[in-house]
């Protein structure tokens, strides 16, 4: 499937690499087909690009790479929409990867990760969903620590604009 994207130009994605979100992604529920892209020379991040709208792409991250203590439990039954059979877990090892959507504050550039509702992608069935976790206290806008700061050596300078209370609203 060929898609004209605003960021990556023309992409030709083989059908077997297209991830189907049967219910879309909230905010983009009309977009059911997506693909994963690996930015060059970048660790722990992927793009998820909509196949049906070339202007829609989100940056997603491996939550365990960003937050070593990220610990969530997902009931196998909740993975039914992406083709995981809870009764066949033993014999059929699912290949489900978890990614979190990143957002950046437009003025401060501070990064946030949606730890409350990760994307779950079954690589075996190429089905994906965004699942709000019910038994957790993670925020939908969890601040991402800025590791690079120490390299730059400007740790002493005060942060640009303190985070307002609405930026860390937990749901």
């Amino acid at each position: 499937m060929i898609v004209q994207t605003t960021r990556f130009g023309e992409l030709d994605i083989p059908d077997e690499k297209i991830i189907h979100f049967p219910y879309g992604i909230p905010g983009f529920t009309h977009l059911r087909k997506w693909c994963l892209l690996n930015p060059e020379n970048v660790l722990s991040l992927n793009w998820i690009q909509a196949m049906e709208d070339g202007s829609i792409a989100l940056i997603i991250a491996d939550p365990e790479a960003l937050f070593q203590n990220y610990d969530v439990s997902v009931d196998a039954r909740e993975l039914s929409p992406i083709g995981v059979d809870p009764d066949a877990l033993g014999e059929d090892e699912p290949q489900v990867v978890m990614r979190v959507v990143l957002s950046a504050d437009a003025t401060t550039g501070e990064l946030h990760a949606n730890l409350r509702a990760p994307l779950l992608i079954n690589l075996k069935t190429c089905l994906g969903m965004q699942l709000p976790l019910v038994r957790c206290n993670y925020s939908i806008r969890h601040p991402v620590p800025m590791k690079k700061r120490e390299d730059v050596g400007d740790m002493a300078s005060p942060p640009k604009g303190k985070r307002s209370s609405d930026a860390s609203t937990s749901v």
Partner: protein
Amino acid sequence: MLILTRKPGEAIRIGNDVLITVKAVNGRQVRLGIEAPNDIPVYREEIFEAMTQANRESLMPESVTQSVLEMFAKPAPKRNEDSEKSQEGNR
């Protein structure tokens, strides 16, 4: 909008597979039981709205994405070579 009045214990069926039962009513709170096929996601509306808003806000302008990608850039290979050389020099 279709509006139906139900008593505790009564239910509403949507299509063949979705059954919503009024379990209890306590003052301003209503407990609902929802039976739906496993492959149909069920969300509390305010959480679905919050996910919608967060995802829309996650669309970053090109200038911002560049700085995000740089933040997660692999260590530059040049720097590694330099450090290897200096290590060799120390030996």
